[in-house]
């Protein structure tokens, strides 16, 4: 049957991959997993290509029933997962047999998790991606969030997945795991690192000081388009009307209310609010875990450092991928 049945779905579970790149010109969001790094790591663990589609689980319970043998792995917030009654920690890979269940229990902290299944989720590719665009209602499973009882088709398992399954043998769960900070992306401290945005100097020193020193709270109207914050009002010196221009996931924009918004993967392609700062790419994982009631602070770093950390992480992912291949050769 090559499918997994969603027996009960939590809050906002969607099919996602690394995003729909190349269509911003038509106003189409990049979207994809809000933490693409987490999905990529989970995919490598189960022997998938890094860009295979998996499931993004929002807060809450998710129950899946498998119809054939698969490998599964997940990365993300402080969820608790069990496979056929045995705990599966984040960043490890487990065998699940046909007829067995995966349960993902609501997180004690953090808001999202990414689940990879060997073979990947097989929904039609629309505009180059399997990601669900919830705002424009296409991609993923019929352009919507998963519902109870949805059958979700899975793709054919790769040779690498077969080798991993063989290596695991009867142990069911890997002795190896992804680096802890990739697997468990629960925030370890309050700070999210940022670089300056184009309109940094439009804000008076008092607003810039408040932005860097004070604590902001995440408000309940946050979603996959943006994390809305409540804190000191950041007012511009001369609030001129601006022409819309490109924005990106991670952009921190400040609407006239003075309450900043951190844009996430499903954000619009262009925006007309001043861009105060940008969350650096390696800290998008932390931003993607923010949910209502969380507090967050910002720490400025240099652009060169932000890029250096990103390059280091890319090299480590490549080493991790090669390490997994050697392990199963």
């Amino acid at each position, binding site marked *: 049957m090559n499918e997994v049945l969603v027996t009960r779905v939590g809050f906002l579970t969607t099919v996602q991959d690394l995003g729909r790149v190349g269509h911003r010109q*038509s106003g*189409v969001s990049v979207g994809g997993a809000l933490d693409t790094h987490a999905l990529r790591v989970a995919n490598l663990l189960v022997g998938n290509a890094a860009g295979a589609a998996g499931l993004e689980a929002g807060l809450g319970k998710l129950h899946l029933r498998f119809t054939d043998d698969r490998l599964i792995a997940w990365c993300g917030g402080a969820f608790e997962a069990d496979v056929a009654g045995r705990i599966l920690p984040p960043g490890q890979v487990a065998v699940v047999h046909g007829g067995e269940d995966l349960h993902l229990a609501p997180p004690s902290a953090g808001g999202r998790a990414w689940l990879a299944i060997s073979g990947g989720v097989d929904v039609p590719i629309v505009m180059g991606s399997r990601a669900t665009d919830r705002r*424009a209602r296409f991609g993923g499973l019929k352009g919507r969030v998963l519902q109870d009882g949805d059958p979700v088709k899975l793709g054919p398992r790769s040779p690498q997945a077969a080798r991993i399954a063989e290596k695991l043998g009867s142990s069911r769960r890997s002795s190896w795991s992804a680096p802890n900070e990739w697997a468990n992306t629960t925030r370890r401290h309050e700070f999210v690192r940022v670089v300056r945005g184009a309109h940094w100097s439009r804000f008076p020193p008092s607003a810039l000081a408040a932005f860097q020193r004070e604590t902001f709270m995440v408000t309940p109207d946050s979603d996959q388009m943006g994390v809305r914050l409540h804190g000191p009002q950041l007012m511009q010196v001369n609030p001129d009307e601006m022409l819309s221009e490109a924005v990106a996931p991670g952009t921190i924009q400040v609407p006239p209310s003075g309450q900043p918004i951190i844009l996430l993967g499903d954000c619009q392609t262009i925006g007309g609010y001043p861009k105060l700062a940008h969350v650096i790419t390696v800290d998008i994982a932390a931003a993607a875990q923010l949910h209502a009631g969380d507090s967050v602070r910002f720490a400025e770093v240099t652009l060169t450092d932000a890029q250096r950390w990103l390059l280091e992480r890319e090299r480590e992912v490549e080493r991790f991928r090669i390490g997994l291949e050697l392990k199963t050769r």
Partner: protein
Amino acid sequence: MEITPLGDSAVVVRVYDDFASNPEAALEAVLNAQQRLEAAAIPSVVEYVAAYDSIGLFFDPAGAIEAGASPDSILDWLKKKIFAALARPIRANKKRARSALLEIPVCYDPEYAPDLGEVAGRSGLSIDEAVRLHRSGEYRVHCVGFVPGFPYLGGLPAELASPRRANPRKSVPAGSVAIGGAQTGIYPIASPGGWNLIGRTPLRLFDPQRVPPALVARGDRVRFRSISRTEFDSWTE
């Protein structure tokens, strides 16, 4: 020309300094810059998003290193590539084709135009005069965004300019033709919106299964043609 970082993996290139006094020249500058950037195919650049007077350019820092950038000066490397691309002359046979002209049928029936009376009244026009004005203009697509396929059209007769509504609607139907400030636009999919609704087109402005998915592209010229309610109801694409 100004190049500003947009986080660690993108930049915004401003290609025109005075949009307000010459929107048409700004659009030409953006289209020309985009053509040059695409022709240059700068290594590591993943995609572009053009706006009114700027082009956002997304890149992969790891790709920049592979292409020869040094890790502590990726931005300088990219700026140099962008300046070189924009300075390059375009060969005569590669000149941009004249922009496409699209005729978009619009039904101005009162049911589809709840805000038309208010828009007309603001300039002391009758509803018929407002419709005639709206369909007499030739517009150009300055931007595509907000939602997939939404065209921001410049060239709206000044008498029709209307501020956005104080209370945006929770859901504007797909195909709604609307006025926001000095621009007119079309909602391709049902979405929340604050523009004034003055008609509806039966055309699908965005269809992810179609190639290309968006009906209009930046730079296209657009005219509106008035259709009756009967034509609208029996429209088949």
